[in-house]
């Protein structure tokens, strides 16, 4: 089924299709959240916010989903939950943590999701070697371990490769139009 079918249905407030979306997607999302320090209520909120996010994004511009709708929705939910968990991390006590369903917070989350997609896309555009080593780097693997896995002679070689690959990824991102528009002040 065409991915835009579901996105259109969200915008049209089509409850028949929305029921189908719930039937196919809610339980895996709930399971994920419960296994990651969340409660049932969190799962319900995250799921609703994710669908709202997709609707609003589609309203602003008819964007395309490259994988299938269900996988994409799941990723959006995972990211929203990760974002939620991080909200409560390094905050100063008198900082007001924005409510998940607050309109401005949802707008910020939407833009952060777009940026995340851009970063992931640019990473996939680097060379195979760079992709491999950067994935290890972002997974916080030790340099010594990286060198072992990729058969480099030493840690130093691994460091230099990471440095070089990060540079090319940085260039790809910073020259990207979308990035520029997302971060322009």
């Amino acid at each position, binding site marked *: 089924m065409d991915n835009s079918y579901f996105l259109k249905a969200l915008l049209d407030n089509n409850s028949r299709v929305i029921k189908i979306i719930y039937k196919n997607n809610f339980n895996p999302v709930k399971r994920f959240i419960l296994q990651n320090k969340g409660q049932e209520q969190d799962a319900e909120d995250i799921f609703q916010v994710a669908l709202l996010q997709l609707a609003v994004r589609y309203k602003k511009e008819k964007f395309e989903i490259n994988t299938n709708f269900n996988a994409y929705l799941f990723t959006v939910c995972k990211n929203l939950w990760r974002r939620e968990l991080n909200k409560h991390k390094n905050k100063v006590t008198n900082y007001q943590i924005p409510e998940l369903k607050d309109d401005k917070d949802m707008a910020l989350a939407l833009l952060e999701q777009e940026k995340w997609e851009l970063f992931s896309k640019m990473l996939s555009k680097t060379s195979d070697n760079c992709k491999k080593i950067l994935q290890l780097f*972002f997974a916080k693997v030790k340099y010594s371990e990286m060198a072992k896995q990729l058969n480099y002679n030493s840690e130093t070689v691994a460091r230099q490769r990471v440095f070089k690959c990060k540079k090319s990824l940085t260039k790809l991102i910073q020259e990207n139009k979308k990035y520029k528009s*997302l971060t322009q002040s």
Partner: protein
Amino acid sequence: MNLNDNILIENFLRNKLSKEEITLFKERLNTDTNFKKYFEFEKELFKNLNNEEWDFTKKTNPKLVEEYTKLFQHEDVKELKETLKQETENFKKNNSSVISLKKIFLSISAVFILFFVVNKFILPNNSPKKLYVSYLKNTEIPSLTHRGNTNKNLSIAQNLFEQKKYKKALSILKNVDSKILVLLYIGISQMELDKFKEAENTFNSIINNKNLNTTKGLWFKALLYLKMNRVSDAKYVLQKINKTDYKYTEAQEILNKLGRLD
């Protein structure tokens, strides 16, 4: 930017710098704008592409933030919000009625199974009265009469005892020499007749006799307490039976079974 600065920033982001190094780092951020720019992007990269953190960067274009915030407040989006709330409730209802039927069925089955298991396996064998009956049944009592010493009264008493005519057996045995074995028969008869206090005294006199047969007295006294449902007293007596004594194995068995009743 050079490799060394890159390593420094990486270590900062991974919390590997010492307190002093962190202070120096923060000072440099305040004075060196290029370094700060570089750092900000490295942080963005790091937080976006690792699987644990999230990039809440303040660099987001404020115009876009405003535009999207307004979109979320649009009429049709608000309607969608309501629909989603409704659909969440519907989904929960439809799913939970199925779940609770299942739960109910499972809990009822569990109760039945538990009931069955307890009645079949646990209770029957381990009620003190039932233990009394089964272990008494399996206790061999030496005959009162033996070769070379056929006391008429003893053999009559023996017969009556075996026929469970305990009252009559007692009336004869009371007039016989109270050797240990005779006392045993007396005690058992009293026990079977529910003459508990008398049985207790009889068994005590066996125990206090300081004769080889005294451990037999312990065993029967324990059986008596089982019949009387005095479980802790029974346990106390059973624990006195030593490894080489009469009925040690059986005593341990009973203790294990009684243990489960607590």
